[in-house]
């Protein structure tokens, strides 16, 4: 296998607060190849956003204790001086955020905001950058891009703003696009359009994509690999088939069961996962999911389950024996999901 584009090794991001140390990310490892799409799934507070904000260098060592390695194109980003990290941000990797209503600066024209991104990395004249910006807006499917580029964000709809954000993110042809809940704030119909757009652009730009979401349903058809996070740790990692047709972690099962299916007759109520996500200051001992897990047994509240992979690619952090995992999935989860 070729060297992955992005490799995160045992990343820990801990925020010191007055109430205690918030372990937002606590030992996450992952790897992402060129042109791949990774879906990162988890509840609020599972550490999915923090992981990738750290990858982007948007969480600094001033704000948090960051340990581990983030290797992007062979370089450990955590060792880079801020100035070099700044150069990579926006051109080597870029990010699209959850709420397009607030993510664009309300005082500047949309085109100018794209121009600014281009000129932060390429010393080209404004006019040329503007032409590039317009063509980017066109590529993300904004009609009348020439005119739209001269408008302000408040003149755009939510979906159009998110397209503009994507145009801005892709304007320097980055190798990695991180989309942090890119569709959460949008209408359902627009969600699908935006995800299809990201798909199409990934091919056009030959970029790797990370889609962060709390909805397993969203990433179903758009991701090669899926990483499920819980309480700052990886609960399960596998390809699309592994997760949807043979998930090994009780938390993933819970997520699968809480997907709303609109393509099948409604037979019974959704089954929410009982309980609340744990405090990241006082993480439960052992497996952090054990207080909410219906399948917990002896070692769960004592021993942290390691992320193990019987076949070398599908990994899960759960003490249940593999046979049990497969049996429970078939008997209880698959029929419902």
């Amino acid at each position, binding site marked *: 296998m070729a060297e992955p584009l992005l490799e995160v090794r045992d990343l820990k991001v801990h925020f010191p607060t007055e109430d205690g140390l918030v372990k937002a990310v606590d030992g996450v490892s992952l790897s992402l190849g060129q042109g791949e799409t990774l879906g990162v799934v988890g509840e609020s507070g599972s550490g999915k956003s923090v992981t990738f904000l750290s990858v*982007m260098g*948007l969480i600094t060592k001033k704000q948090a204790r960051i340990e581990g390695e983030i290797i992007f194109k062979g370089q450990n980003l955590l060792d880079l001086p801020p100035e070099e990290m*700044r*150069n*990579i*941000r*926006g*051109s080597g990797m*870029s*990010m699209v*955020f959850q*709420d397009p209503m*607030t*993510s*664009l*600066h*309300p*005082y500047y024209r949309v085109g100018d905001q794209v121009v*600014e*991104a281009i000129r*932060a*990395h390429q010393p080209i004249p404004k006019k040329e950058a503007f032409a590039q910006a317009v063509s980017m807006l066109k590529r993300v499917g904004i009609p009348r891009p020439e005119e739209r580029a001269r408008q*302000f964000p*408040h003149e755009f709809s939510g979906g159009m703003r998110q397209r503009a*954000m994507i145009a*801005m*993110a892709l304007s320097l042809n980055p190798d990695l696009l991180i989309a942090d809940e890119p569709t959460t704030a949008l209408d359902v119909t627009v969600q699908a359009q935006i995800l299809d757009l990201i798909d199409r652009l990934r091919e056009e730009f030959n970029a790797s994509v990370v889609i962060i979401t709390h909805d397993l349903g969203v990433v179903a058809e758009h991701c090669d690999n899926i990483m499920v996070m819980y309480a700052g740790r990886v609960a399960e990692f596998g390809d699309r088939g592994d997760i949807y047709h043979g998930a090994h972690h009780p938390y993933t099962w819970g997520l699968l069961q809480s997907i709303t299916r609109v393509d099948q007759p409604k037979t019974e109520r959704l089954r929410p996962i009982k309980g609340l996500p744990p405090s990241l200051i006082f993480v439960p001992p052992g497996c952090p999911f054990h207080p909410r897990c219906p399948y917990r047994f002896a070692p769960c509240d004592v021993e942290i389950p390691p992320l193990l992979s019987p076949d070398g690619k599908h990994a899960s952090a759960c003490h249940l024996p593999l046979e049990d995992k497969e049996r429970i999935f078939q008997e209880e989860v698959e029929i419902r999901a």
Partner: protein
Amino acid sequence: MGRYLIRRTLFLILVLFIISALTFVIFLKLPAGDPARRAAGRRATESTIRQVRINLGLDKPWYVQYGRFAKGLIPWPGFFLNEQVYFSYFNNVPVKEQLYSRIPYTAVLALGGAATWLLLGIPIGIVSAIRRRSFVDRAGMVFALFGVSAPVFWLGFLFLFFFWFKFNQWFGWGFPPSGIPTEESLGTAVLKGRFLLPWLVLSFTFAAFYARMVRGNLIETMGEDYIRTARAKGLSERRVIFKHGLRAALTPVVTMFGMDMGYLLGGAIITETVFRIHGLGDYAIRSLFTNDFPAVMGVTIFASFFIVVANLLVDVAYAFLDPRVRYQ
């Protein structure tokens, strides 16, 4: 925008009309003592008082009286503050003459003060916001707390005592005192630094207030999503702060500044009194104490005019600063 401006101008006229009417009622119709009797002097006989009343037109019906004053407020040569109506009841000096000679002093005081407080307040606010919880931030905020709580008259005397009186004793030099000799022109007074202490004192409270406001606004803005976007684009931190953060954080400051300027152009009463500057504020307070109605009317209308115009300018400026604001 054109229609909006016309509407606002009409509104301005209405406001000034109401203010003039209220001033008239308060000072001529509900005064503490008979204005004619006061104007006639202490040892006036009844017939003198009657004569004075006729001379001042105070014997006419109220609407005629108000009409005379109102006519004098129409901004037209010959009408505006005409000397038949607008003269001091005490020394017969035309109000217009007084106002026109005093406005430059107040303007210099207000503009210099404004420059000082902006130069002090905004940088302190920015540095405090960026280096939050640092020593600089703490020091800046202690200054701000002190500044907003120190009364201007006390601060004025304190400054005079130290910077002028004590500095002279200790080092043989001190800031020039600011009471401006009558023969000295305004330009010379400025060049001689007579305004330095008044500017500092006047700007102190404002600087403190602005520092807090800029700090608060900037801290809030730097937490906005679009700041994260700006960083994600790979912009330098300097550009993120100054182009993206400050732009949004300073817009409300512009509003504040416009209103403060409008207010101060009507006269900084305490500063002018402490430093013996013959500006509008000084005139206002003298006229009030002597119940000199035409002068009170003149100075009130000027002060209100500055405030209303400043408000209008702020609103217009807002449309340029914030693209989301558009006036119909």
